[in-house]
C-alpha cells in the first residue's frame, strides 16, 4: 500500500517510529494530487512549497503531527485565499485563523490545500462552485455530492489523509456517503465555527472527512471544545473519543425510523441498509422500529430557516469592506446591487431572494415563525426517540451519486437529495456516515448513524464495530 492510501492512525505509528518522514509523506501526496486531481478536480489550490515547509518543521510528538489535511474553502486560514468557491470572494485573503485551523496547527497537522465546494456551501453536488466541477472518484461523470464535495473527493481519491468540511443540512455526510468515506457532523456546539464563513448560523457545524472511524475520532478530538470566540460552542467536556471505539455493540439499542425507509429510497441502498441492520442484530444489538413523525416536514422547514439566515449572513457581501466591487460608477445603493449581482451565482441569488421573502413583513409569520415551530416538533421527535434508543440508523442519501447535470435545472429536486440528513441539523444532534456497500453500478452507499446531543462517542462505538467487520474501507477507486 502506498503512503497516500494510509490512515491517520497507521501513519502516526510509522511517523513516530521514524519509519517514514513527514516530508516523504507530503511528497507522496503531492505526487498523487498531481496524477489524479486533473481528473477529480477536488482541490481549488494546493501550495506544495508551503506543505513541504510545514513537513520540515512539524512536531511529531503532537497528536496529528505530520498528517496532511485538506480544508474546505469556506474556513479561514491566515494568509490563504478563502473564496467559498464564489466570484465575490476572489482574492480575499483570510486575516486570521479559524479556531479549527489554529487547533489543527497546534496538533501538528500539515495543511495541504483548499477544496472545492458549492458556492457558499449551497448545494448537494458541488456543481454550484463558480470555479470548476468536482468529479466522483468512483465514476468521473457522476457528482461527488455536496456541498463539501471537494473535501470528500480528495479523501476518497487518496489525495489527502483527512479533510475538514462544513455541514448545514448534510454537506459532510451526503458527500461522504456518495464518495465512500467517513463523514461526521458533530453536535451543534461541539466544534467552534469561529472563522467559518457563515451560511445558516443555527445549523452550521464543522466536521472531518476521514478514511476510517478511528481517524474520525482522532480528528474530532483535535477540533472539539468550547471557544470564547464562539458563543454557541458549549462548555461540555471533550471525552476521550478513541476509548469508545473498543466498546462492543452488544446491548446497544438501535432505532430504525420507519420514515427513512419509505418511498424514494433506491433499491440498492435499501438492500445494503437491511444487511447492515441484520449484522447489528447478529452482534447482539437491540433493533427497534421507531417513528420520527415530522420527518416529512424537514426539507420545507430547512429551506425556510436556512435561506432566511443566509439572506442575513450574506448581506455583508456588499462590495464595501471586502470582496468584489463593481466597476460601475454610482451611488452606494447601485454599488451594492451591482457588486452582488456580479459576484453571486444563481443558487446563492435564489436562496437570498427566498430567504428575504420568508422574513419580509407580512410573510414572516406564515413562513419563518411557522418553520421555527415545526423545527421544535422535529426536535422533540428526536428527544423522544433517544429515550428508548442509543443511536438511530438510516440511509445517508436516498440514492448513490447521480450523474452530473441531472438536477441542475430543478432546484427542488436537488434539495430533496438531502432528505435523510437535514433533520439532524434542525435537531442539533450528531450524525456520522460510513460506507456500507456498493450499488450494482459500483458506486458507494452510505449508512448514517444519528446520536443524541454530545454523544459522538456512541456513534464511534457503533460505526467502528461495523467497519471492523466489513471490508468496504479497503476498496479504493481506480483511475
Amino acid at each position, binding site marked *: 500500500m502506498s503512503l497516500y492510501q494510509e490512515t491517520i492512525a497507521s501513519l502516526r505509528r510509522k511517523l513516530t517510529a521514524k519509519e517514514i518522514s513527514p516530508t516523504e509523506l507530503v511528497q507522496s501526496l503531492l505526487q498523487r494530487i498531481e496524477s489524479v486531481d486533473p481528473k477529480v478536480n477536488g482541490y481549488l489550490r494546493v501550495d506544495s512549497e508551503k506543505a513541504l515547509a510545514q513537513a520540515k518543521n512539524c512536531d511529531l510528538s503532537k497528536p496529528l503531527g505530520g498528517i496532511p489535511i485538506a480544508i474546505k474553502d469556506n474556513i479561514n486560514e491566515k494568509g490563504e485565499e478563502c473564496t467559498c468557491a464564489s466570484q465575490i470572494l476572489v*482574492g480575499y*485573503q483570510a*486575516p*486570521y485563523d479559524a479556531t479549527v485551523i489554529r487547533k489543527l496547527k497546534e496538533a501538528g497537522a500539515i495543511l495541504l490545500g483548499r477544496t472545492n465546494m458549492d458556492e457558499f456551501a449551497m448545494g448537494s453536488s458541488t456543481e454550484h462552485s463558480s470555479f470548476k466541477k468536482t468529479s466522483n472518484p468512483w465514476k468521473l461523470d457522476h457528482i461527488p455530492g455536496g456541498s463539501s464535495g471537494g473535501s470528500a473527493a480528495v479523501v476518497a481519491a487518496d489525495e489527502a489523509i483527512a479533510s475538514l468540511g462544513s455541514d448545514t443540512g448534510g454537506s459532510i455526510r451526503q458527500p461522504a456517503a456518495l464518495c465512500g468515506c467517513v463523514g461526521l457532523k458533530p453536535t*451543534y*456546539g461541539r466544534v467552534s465555527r469561529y472563522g467559518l464563513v457563515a451560511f445558516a448560523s*443555527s445549523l452550521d457545524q464543522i466536521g472531518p472527512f476521514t478514511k476510517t472511524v478511528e481517524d474520525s475520532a482522532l480528528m474530532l478530538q483535535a477540533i472539539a471544545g468550547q471557544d*470564547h470566540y464562539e*458563543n*454557541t460552542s*458549549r462548555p461540555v467536556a471533550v471525552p476521550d473519543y478513541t476509548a469508545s471505539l473498543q466498546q462492543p455493540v452488544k446491548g446497544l439499542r438501535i432505532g430504525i425510523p420507519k420514515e427513512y425507509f419509505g418511498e424514494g429510497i433506491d433499491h440498492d441502498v435499501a438492500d445494503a441498509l437491511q444487511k447492515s441492520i441484520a449484522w447489528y442484530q447478529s452482534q447482539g444489538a437491540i433493533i427497534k422500529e421507531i417513528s420520527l413523525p*415530522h420527518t*416529512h*416536514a424537514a*426539507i*420545507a422547514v430547512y*429551506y*425556510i430557516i436556512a435561506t432566511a439566515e443566509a439572506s442575513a449572513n450574506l*448581506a455583508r457581501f*456588499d462590495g*464595501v*469592506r*471586502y*470582496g*468584489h*466591487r463593481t466597476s460601475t*460608477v*454610482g*451611488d*452606494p*445603493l447601485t*454599488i*451594492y*446591487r*451591482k457588486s*452582488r*449581482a456580479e459576484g453571486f451565482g*444563481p443558487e446563492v*441569488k*435564489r436562496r*437570498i*431572494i*427566498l430567504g*428575504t*421573502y420568508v422574513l*419580509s413583513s407580512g410573510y414572516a409569520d*406564515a*413562513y419563518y*415563525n*411557522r*418553520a421555527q*415551530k*415545526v*423545527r*421544535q*416538533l422535529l426536535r422533540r421527535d428526536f428527544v423522544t426517540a433517544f429515550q428508548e434508543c442509543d443511536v438511530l440508523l438510516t440511509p445517508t442519501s436516498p440514492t448513490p451519486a447521480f450523474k452530473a447535470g441531472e438536477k441542475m435545472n430543478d*432546484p*427542488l429536486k436537488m*434539495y430533496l437529495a438531502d432528505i435523510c440528513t437535514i433533520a439532524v441539523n434542525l435537531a*442539533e444532534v450528531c450524525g456520522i456516515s460510513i460506507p456500507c456497500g456498493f450499488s450494482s453500478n459500483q458506486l458507494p452507499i452510505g449508512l448514517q448513524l444519528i446520536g443524541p446531543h454530545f454523544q459522538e462517542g456512541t456513534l464511534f462505538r457503533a460505526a467502528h464495530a461495523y467497519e471492523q467487520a466489513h471490508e468496504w474501507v479497503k476498496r479504493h477507486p481506480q483511475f
Partner: protein
Amino acid sequence: MNSNSIDVAYVAGLARLELTQAETETFQKQISSILDYVEALQRIDVSSVADNPIDPNLPTNVLRPDELRPSLTAQDVVRNAPKSANNLVIMPKIVE
C-alpha cells in the same frame, strides 16, 4: 395564503440584488414552486409549541468581561477592501 404572490423583482430590491429580466423570470417560476412545496407546513398542528419557541439547547446571554484583548490591526482589516487609503475604506459620497 397565496404562495405564488412573491414578486421576485421587488424582493430582489429588498435584498440589494440586481437581476436581469431572464433571471427574474426563472426565479419567479422556481421560487414559486418551492413556496408551493413548503405550503405543507401550514397543515401541521403546532398548537403545542409556544409562540416564540426558545431552543432549549442554545445558550442565552453568553457574557465575557469587558476588557481589552488583542485584535486585528487596522491594516489587516482594510487589506481586503476593494478601495482604501490611510487605513480607511473608500466609498462614494452618501450625503450630497
